[in-house]
């Protein structure tokens, strides 16, 4: 594969690739936010909710974590239309990946919540905060801070996993690459280019998050080894 060929490829199809990248970003960001919001809700419900809500949340989390994301994606894209809920590929992918991520993010938050000692809860109540205030002002901020490394990791994971949206024809990076490949028969060249893109973003994001984590870290607030 000569350099000329590669440059040619980028020249003629660069805008396709850029669009694919933007869709991948959009997909990742939206499903991550859905996953975070639901993840917070689920982790709180599992810690403080009434019994049946706890059970419901646990069932959702275990079922989601116990099955491939691909199945969840296909269920939402191919089965929901049967109950008159036909979604376009992109929203279907956002919802499927978002729900999947919610299960994982709720687990990360649950782990960090359980590492916060009961005395923080007692102290919050002792100054007169209500339970809801104690969760919002004391427990949740600490849990999120502690979970930042794993939550950041999840975002990078999602960026890579967002590629499964390819299977339901969302025009993300891999989908447009396949399209370009089918036009030019330069499959390997295109795939190599986007491999570089994925790797570059993953590594850059990892470094960026490490930096942010260092900058925003609070002394004494991290997952204690719990020994």
């Amino acid at each position, binding site marked *: 594969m000569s350099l000329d060929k590669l440059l040619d490829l980028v020249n003629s199809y660069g805008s396709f690739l850029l669009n694919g990248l933007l869709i991948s970003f959009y997909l990742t960001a939206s499903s991550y936010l859905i996953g975070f919001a639901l993840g917070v809700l689920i982790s709180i419900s599992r810690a403080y909710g009434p019994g049946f809500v706890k059970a419901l949340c646990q069932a959702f989390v*275990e*079922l989601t*974590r*116990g*099955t*491939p*994301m*691909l*199945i969840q994606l*296909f*269920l939402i894209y*191919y*089965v929901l239309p*049967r109950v008159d809920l036909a979604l376009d590929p992109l929203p279907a992918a956002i919802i499927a990946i978002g729900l999947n991520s919610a299960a994982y993010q709720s687990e990360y938050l649950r782990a960090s919540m359980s590492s916060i000692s009961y005395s923080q809860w007692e102290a919050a109540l002792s100054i007169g905060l209500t339970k809801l205030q104690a969760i919002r002002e004391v427990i949740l901020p600490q849990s999120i801070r502690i979970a930042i490394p794993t939550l950041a990791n999840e975002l990078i994971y999602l960026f*890579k*996993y967002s*590629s*499964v949206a*390819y*299977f339901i024809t969302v025009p993300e990076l*891999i989908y447009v690459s*396949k399209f370009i*490949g089918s036009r030019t028969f330069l*499959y*390997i060249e295109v*795939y*190599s280019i*986007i*491999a570089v893109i*994925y*790797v*570059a*973003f*993953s*590594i850059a994001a*990892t470094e960026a998050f490490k930096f942010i984590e260092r900058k925003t870290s609070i002394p004494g607030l991290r997952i204690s*080894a*719990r*020994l």
Partner: protein
Amino acid sequence: MNGFLTYVPVILMGVWNTLILSTAGFLLATLLGLLMAFIEVFSPKPISITVDWVTRVLRGVPLLLALLLVFYGLPRVGIALPNIASAIIGITIVDSGYQAQLFRGAIEGVGERQLEAAYSIGLSKWAAFRYIIAPQAFRAALPGWLNEFTIVLKDSSIAYAIGVTELFTQAVHVAQVVLDYLQPLILVSIVYFSICYPLSIISERARRKLLAMGVAAV
């Protein structure tokens, strides 16, 4: 039942390929991951850093893309392999990056003090590794290692992209014949779940047990 039941055996035949695919890919990734972890921990800095970057690159590639690269790439250099072999190679490559990270964390997690104590009673470098570091690192890595297998098992469904006739592929093919996705997908979900869920419980138990023993799992 629109004929779905007659197709159940067809779908379940995919279980074997799923198991072969994920087990082979996973175990090969373990070998490769261990090798890279050892190099990262025990070799001189330039080599260690190079290998560290290799693992970072491997972790940066989506499995789907790795499969496509292997599947379309090998024939280009004159190697023709069955789909399932390409899938195993793809899984091995990507997962070895993650496992290297896991094992490295486990070895480094044992810590300087244990090593100091080992040297203090006169153990050689090798003996210290063999009798002090390795047993602890092995335990610390165990829960994460089991968990990693469930990830590989679930992700092996992505081999659908290159036409490997594993569980998920079979389900989709049957779905297209019986014109119903729900039943085939539920069926394969049950299969995946009945393997992953027990494993995740075992992993969690091991994690807790190790914690009680004073070993923080990676």
